[in-house]
């Protein structure tokens, strides 16, 4: 399993998101390492199809696939919770769902 986290410099959501990701990996007994990649320019964002920080990819698949109106930029991700509210960090269930699917 390839686990990659794309992020922007100074993203306040990175560490809390990593904590959640690590928690899920431990609980699902996944030992693969997390690859962290900093996205530093709009050009790089476009190349990586990066719509915001943090972006968690499991085997190249985004845990929260962005909608077609999203644009590539050094943005901040807004994750939609089940209750419809917005969170800057991904819900644990969202991470777990894709990890289990890709196991």
């Amino acid at each position, binding site marked *: 399993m390839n686990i990659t986290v794309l992020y922007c410099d*100074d993203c306040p959501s990175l560490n809390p998101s990593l904590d959640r990701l690590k928690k899920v990996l431990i609980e699902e007994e996944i030992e693969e390492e997390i690859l962290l990649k900093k996205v530093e320019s709009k050009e790089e964002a476009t190349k990586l199809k990066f719509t915001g920080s943090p972006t968690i990819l499991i085997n190249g698949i985004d845990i929260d696939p962005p909608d077609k109106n999203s644009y590539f930029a050094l*943005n*901040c991700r807004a994750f939609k919770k089940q209750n419809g509210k917005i969170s*800057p960090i991904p819900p644990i269930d969202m991470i777990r769902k894709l990890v289990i699917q890709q196991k």
Partner: protein
Amino acid sequence: MAKIKIGDTQLNFELPGVDGIKHNIENIQKIKVVIFSCNHCPYAQAWEDRIVNLQSEFSKEIQVMMISSNDAEQFPDDSFKEMAKRSKEKKFNFPYLYDESQEIAILYGAERTPEAFVFDALGTLKYHGTIDDNYENESEVEKSFLKEAIKNIINGENPSPSFTEPVGCTIKWKN
């Protein structure tokens, strides 16, 4: 880093609002709650309903002035047009102002969205910082820093804490 510290006099500004009016902080006699925010930041989005509720709850005593200073060229969700849409959708009960040149954000030394500066009626900075301690879940908030600061100021007391570290995305500066 903020260019204004607790006890300093308010930094004045006049900015265009999405309501078509230019808003001048000097015209406000109440407690002024200046909040640097924006459309796209998920932290700003997470807290905006609570800010609306604060304005509603303390409508006689405070005036919230929300300012977006983000570069709309790089972040089109933060354009003036989108600001107007957001204000209407979320029923903002306060002016949502556009700091297009980013001059006011620089003047204040604001760095994050949201980041609050609260001045008493005489224009003295009494509180600077974040909204509360739980952006993700309002029902799990233990410390409503901004609300408690407002209540303190209304009662003629100094907020404690008077400073909390602002939590949110960085203001998106022009190149």
